[in-house]
């Protein structure tokens, strides 16, 4: 849950709208996403990304022996969309964003954190284009972006932002359904175990309570 003192950032509608007008070429297989990130870092604060940062990006965004092709493509799409949001002047000049940027030590570090966290949180949850074409996809990505950017949607308290994030988070809802199923099955198992004759016979007691 965001800390109560988390600064207010851009309005959710601003971020959602920006996603709605994302350039289609972000979904093209030919787009070189690491280069996009490196260029963005230079534009943000003149940072030349060091080798470690690029290696980490490459690890996440390149084909490895254990990473299926579609996962890589999806990660690249998400990173591209985050770059698109970071480029938005309404986002970059927002006072809350500036505060959050200062807290993490500068624009590039701030941007890299969002790039990393958003793709890890959302990878594989929706078809790539649904992040911009469908209302609920835009809502989930916009909320994830602001959350990992370290700001609250304008006009939302931390607790409300948390509730609304959990309501739209596909991963959370999926985990919730699984967890609730486990807990429900367990409650029924406990009921059966306690009702069994071998439980009813209990055990010898040495003290009184």
């Amino acid at each position, binding site marked *: *849950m965001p800390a109560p003192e988390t600064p207010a950032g851009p309005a959710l509608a601003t971020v959602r709208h920006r996603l709605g007008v994302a350039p289609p070429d972000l979904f093209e297989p030919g787009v070189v996403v690491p280069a996009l990130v490196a260029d963005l870092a230079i534009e943000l604060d003149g940072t030349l990304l060091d080798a470690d940062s690029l290696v980490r990006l490459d690890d996440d965004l390149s084909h490895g022996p254990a990473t299926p092709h579609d996962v890589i493509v999806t990660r690249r799409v998400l990173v591209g969309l985050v770059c698109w949001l970071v480029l938005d002047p309404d986002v970059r000049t927002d006072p809350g964003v500036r505060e959050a940027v200062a807290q993490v030590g500068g624009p590039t570090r701030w941007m890299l954190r969002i790039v990393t966290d958003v793709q890890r949180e959302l990878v594989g949850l929706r078809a790539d284009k649904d992040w911009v074409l469908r209302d609920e996809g835009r809502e989930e990505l916009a909320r994830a972006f602001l959350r990992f950017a370290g700001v609250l949607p304008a006009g939302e308290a931390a*607790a409300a932002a*948390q509730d609304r994030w*959990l309501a739209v988070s596909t991963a*959370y809802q999926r*985990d*919730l359904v699984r*967890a609730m199923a*486990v*807990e429900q099955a*367990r*409650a029924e*198992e*406990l*009921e059966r*175990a*306690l009702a069994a*004759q*071998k*439980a*009813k*016979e*209990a*055990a*010898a*007691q*040495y*003290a*009184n*309570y």
Partner: protein
Amino acid sequence: MRTTEQPAVPDPVLGEYAPMGAATLTDAERWPTLDDDGHARLAALRGHADAPPWVHATGDRLTAADEPVLAAAERGPTDTDWVEALIARAHADVPAYRRAQREGRSGPGSALSELPPVTRRHLVDDLASYVPVDVPLDRVLEGSSSGSTGAALRVPLHPASVAADLVLLQRLVASTGAVWEPDPRRLGLANVVDQRVAFTYASAMTAFRRAAGLPAPLMARLNLSGWPDPAGRDRFLTGLDPQVLSTSTLPLVRLLGLDLDLHPVAVVSGATDLPASVRAAAAARWGCPVIDLYGLRETGPVAASLDGGGHVLVPRRVHVEILDASGQTVPDGSRGEVVVTVDENPYLPLLRYRTGDHAALVRDARGAVLVGLEGRAPVLFRAADGTLRPSIDATQLLQAYGLAAYHLHQGADGSVHLRALPLRGLGLDPRAAADAVARWLGRPVGLTVLDDVGGLGPGKPRRFSVDG
């Protein structure tokens, strides 16, 4: 086994107390590690000429796999960060805390003081939310707690944590300087109650810490009102001369009144307040230590008073806070509600469990000490024939008749009134409960049916009270 003399249960709802009504296992399942000699000695105890009619059969259910738990109980906890570890584990495995984490209310790194206290009502309404999801349930035992605030609570118990109580008793008795070693001529422990109906049984204490080669001592749960012939009861008790009398205040008073030739190495009293006068009388009569053990079925043992001067926290993973009425921690030395965090029973670790009992916490050379512990007062009702009847009899009746919460009051003129909140959805008539109480006391019983627990007043509802 002698069961035939047992009179019919005194009320139709108490059918589980019919002789052997709840006993289903074989003796090999009851004591998986007991040798042939142990079974033979147990058979002799059960068949003793003056044995009571045994109402139940139950053992300790311990297997060799439980030995590490018992050995740990003998040493006491050595880790100092177990509360933090329990908080982290609860958020991974205990549904109530998994939910709290999902909803952002708390997490594995939360401080204990940030977690909301848990009440008996939480466990009555939704026990499964407090039982870890990752512990196999194949050995769960049903413990029940009549408690002091209303509806009966089923407590899932593990054989090893139940048996660890015995190891703790050994430690407490040893700490007084008393010597409790196996003595095949005597009963190792008698758990003594005095009720209209009660589970009575004979068992072997295979968990008893002892030198290799010594036999497991025997124990029995005995009901002073459970013999058809008091002379037989007295012969049984004096003949087997229990080494430890584990009991509570009212049966202890009755036992003292019987004036039998007993030689306990120690008396352990639990469940209810032990008045100084009763402690002194027992110590004077038998010249042995008297240990007042404080705990709840839900938490297990919490603290013990060896000398009447405060209850010292026992060497288990148990942590106590004192909270005020608003739920805030009070400074050491101030009175408030005793709230217990405990990690001993694998089926029911508890974080900040409200006991409903009150005390102040002080720290001295003995460790953390509960001073002025209150809330466990036993209550006696006066029947029409002038006899005094312990409230535990009424607890059995009222819970069996499906009351969620209640308050039974007797006025100075002897009149009795029941205020009752029925469990919803069972279609039970609280009048039947009132009628059962009327039969028990031989007096008419007035009845007020409540719609919610608020009708019993704020704070810890008192279930029983007597004027005059």
